[in-house]
Each structure stands twice: as C-alpha cells, then as structure tokens.
C-alpha cells in the first residue's frame, strides 16, 4: 500500500546541502514510498506545486544551513491556500544557528504548522517510522 503514497522532498531556501537529501530520498524509496524530490534551493512554492500535482501525503523539508526558520515561515498557510489543508509536514536538519534549547526550537516549528520536527543527527529510519504511523501504515512495518 505504501507505494501509493508520495512524499515531496527538498532542501529549502538558499541551501545547497545535497548529500542528506539524496540519503533521505534513498531511504524513503527503500521503505516503499514514491519520492518527488525537488532537490536543493527549493522554494516554498515548489514544495506546494509538487505536492499538488502528485497528491502527496507528506512534505519533508530539510534545512541544513541555519536559516530554516525564516524559509519555512508561511509554508503551512500557503499549503492551505492551495487546498492541501491536511498534508503532513515534517522538517529536520540544522534548523537554527548556534546552540539553542531544542524544546524551544521544536515548539517554534510546531507553531508554524509542522507535524514533526527533528534535531540534527536524526536517522532517516526514525522519521520514516513516524510517517508510517501518521499515515496509519504501521502494521506493515512490524
């Protein structure tokens, strides 16, 4: 059933970190998801357009260069405007500059409308397991 589900994947903003993006794409495909990978330097609009055409179940935003907070602001509202009110949104990476309290960072991103927020060093498997659960596919992983 998971091959029906599409995840839009990309690195948001003026961020050119391509390696993690490829690893995530590979891990998602291995887990049976269809991946619409829009790559690095992705704009909010590109995430939304890709999700619209592919009827994606989730948008996965990576940000590795510390400016994710500014880039991600408005993504949830724009998705809602485009008719994607129910789409799952995850974000992860080096979301902010410097050593900040994680709980505070997570809260700020959740307030922006992200369903799940991951700190640096998260393994892809953890987010994929969460996605399976959020999509009600959990039995298939057991």
């Amino acid at each position, binding site marked *: 059933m998971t091959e029906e589900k*599409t995840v839009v994947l990309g690195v948001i903003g*003026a961020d050119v970190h391509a390696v993690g993006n490829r690893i995530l794409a590979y891990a998602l495909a291995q887990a049976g998801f269809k991946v*619409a990978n829009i790559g*690095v*330097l992705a704009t909010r609009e590109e995430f939304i357009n890709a999700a*619209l*055409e*592919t009827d*994606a179940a989730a948008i996965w935003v990576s940000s590795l260069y510390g*400016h994710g907070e500014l880039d991600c602001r408005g993504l949830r509202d724009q998705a809602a405007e485009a008719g994607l009110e129910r789409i799952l949104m995850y974000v992860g990476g080096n979301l902010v500059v410097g050593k900040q309290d994680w709980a505070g960072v997570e809260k700020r991103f959740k307030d922006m409308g992200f369903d799940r927020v991951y700190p640096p060093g998260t393994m892809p498997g953890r987010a994929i397991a969460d996605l399976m659960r959020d999509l009600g596919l959990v039995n298939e992983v057991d």
Partner: protein
Amino acid sequence: MALALLMDIGSTYTKAVALDLEKAEVTAAARAPTTVQEITRGLARAVSELEKQLGGRPDWCHRLACSSAAGGLKMVAIGLVPGLTAKAARWAALGAGARVLKVYAHELAGREVTEIEALKPDIILLAGGTDGGNRRVLLHNAGRLADSRCPAAVILAGNKAAADEAASLLAGAGKDVRLAENVLPELDRLNVDPARQLIRQVFLEKIIHARGLDRTQQYLEGVLMPTPAAVLSAAELLARGTAEESGLGDLLVVDVGGATTDVYSICSGQPTRAGVSLKGLPEPYAKRTVEGDLGMRVSAPALYEAAGPRLAAEAAGMEAAAVRHYVELVHREPFLLPAGETQWRLETALAVLAVRLAVERHAGYLETFWTPVGATPVQHGKDLTAMPLLIGTGGVITAHPDPGPLLSAALYREAEPHRLLPRAPALAVDRGYILAAAGLLAEVAPDAALRAAKKNLLHL
C-alpha cells in the same frame, strides 16, 4: 528518375518543390498565393508552375503536403499547476505543430469554459496530475468540458489513475475523447511524444476534412501534418540521422515568417558549466517555441513593440521613426518585397530583431542565488551555449544576400551572461527553404529526406 511532390500550404503562400530521391536534390520549386476560400486553386497554380519548369507532368512517386493555412491547428492546453502539467501540455501541443491559443491551469471556472467555447479550438489537450497524483482537478475539468458546447476533440493525457473516469465523463456527453499517456507521469519526467502522436492522428482524421484540405485529393495523396510539425521532424532527422546515414548532432533552427518566428532546438540542454544546478520541469529534447508577436509582416508592429525603439534603431542603424514607418508599410502590404538599399536595411533589421528575441525566449537562463557558501548559479530551461550548429530558414533568411548577420543576432552576448545563448555555432541556411518538405518526405523515405536536407544546407 523518382520525383516526389512536396507542398507546404502556408497562410500566405502555397509552396511546391519537386525532389529527386536518387540525387537527393530539389529539381524545381514554385509558389503561388494561398487561396483561402478554395484551397485547391492556389495549389493547382503552384503545381502547374512546377510542371512548367519540369517540362511536363512527371510520374510523382509521392505527393505529400503539410499545412498551416486557415489558422493552422488550433489547440487549448489544460493542466493543474502552471509550471508543471499545464506547461507539459503546452509543450506537447507545440511539438505537434499546433497554435496554442491559450493555456489553462487548476480547476476551470465557468467563464473560462465560455472562453474556450469562443476560442473554437480544434483539439483540447487535457492534462493534470502526475500518475497516481491529483485526480480531482482532471475529473473536475473533464466534467466542465463535458457540460460545455465545445465540439473540439479532447485528448486526455493526465493522471492515469483518473483518466478512464474522466474519459467516460466526456464520452458520455458525446465528446470525441482519446486517451494518451500522461504528459508528466512523474514530477521529473516529461513524456510528450504519445500525446503528440495522438494530436497528429486527430489532425489526419478530422481537421483536414474540417478545413477543406481533403479536397486536395486530386493533387495529393494527403495532407499529413501541420507545417511546424514537419519542420520539427526535419530538424530531429537532421540531428539524429537514420540507420543508413549519420546525422549532424545537436542543432538549433530559427524560422522567421510573416506572422510568427519559430525556434526548434534538438538537444538535451543540460548545464555545460560545473556547479550549476537545474531547476524546473525537464524540457523536451526536441523543443519548439513559437512567438506570435515576432514576424516580418502581419506581426511586424508587434515585433517593433516587443523590441522597443532603442533596440530597433540600433538594429537598423537608423532613427527609430524610420523603422516604424517601414513596419507600418509592410503591415499594410504583406506581399511587399524590399527594394533598394534602405528597404533592405530595414528588412534586415526586422529579421535581426525577430531572431534575437525569439532565440532569447527559447534559450534557458541562469539565476544566481546567494548562499552562505557564495553565489550558486541555477539554470532554468536549456543551456544552448555549446550549441554546435545554427540553421536559419523562412523567407527573409533564405532569400537574403547576406544571411550571416541575421543569424548572428541569436548569439551569446557578453553584456547578458545570464542568457544561455549559443556562443560559437557553425551557421547554415536552409538554402532552398525545404526543411518542411524534408520533414514530409521523412514519413516515406527518411534516408533520401536526410540526404536532401543535408545537401541543401548552405554553410556560412
């Protein structure tokens, strides 16, 4: 001697060439004004002129034509997101040689349906959603078209998971509906050829009859395709070659006409510089663009408008007012041929502007993003900087005593480094104006067509 009669029924002229298949050469060429009311009269005149040159009526082994008369093949393209399936649908229609009247995106509104009814397209290409992607918009738009009074054939080339249901909505309302593979099956995979084939088929089955082109039967075996499709086919053949005969590799063709300027690029257009990343929809390997506002006669005022007085004056080396005066003259008298040095200079200037602007719009460009690690160039569209060959065609280029400077207007400009224009291509002219004829002949004798097209090129 095996001779083929190849005709191009254009909006102004009906052109005919006799092509010797063994020698791969044009043995005679003639033209007559296209007779819009009764297409066969102009056709008969061009053919009899040709036969006069040949000294009798030869035993033609093929008699084929393409046509852009009576407004060409008129299409409307519909998709979901403007930059994704709507764009892919537009490319498929352009690649089939159509005149794309308008492109629609998202769910069609009532007034948009009314507009489509008024536009009277021959064919509607309906896309939307990647395979397994969005279904709702395709179904909504199919329903809207089913309820409309538009009699156009609908080619459905959207999300395969919704295509059958969408097709039965349309068929249930008595529409002529055909199913093609999705023009954008995945976000990063363009698939325009199946839709192109189907457009061609509908053109053969229906449009030729609707245009009265089937009355040409006593002269011709058939009108096979819209003229731009024939030129695109010739360009592809020239680039790729056949099993027997090698092609020329990547190439760019500029066709400057009275009403439009068409540009065809046969190349992948991948970045040629290291460190450049590619954005947006992948572009077709055989890509056609058509500029309805860039032409030498009907569209001359729009061309002047698009270029602006400064660029126009620069191209002519004269006052902008002189260019504008000439533009008004040729617009009034579309059959006028330039006479004298001043008119030739102005005619040349218009062609330079048409080539420059049309290739500029066809080519990709670089956008610079500033990131914490410095400037990062991002490419949109095709990189043509390493293009090895540029071919010019269309009346003004093929008839010009010195076509080099016209074609050079397409080249890379140091002052605009973001435009990915050809840097140093070899330049050539479609001397006998036969690319469309070669594209037609390619249907029945591809090797001879390729040899003729190659032989006919005048390398500058």
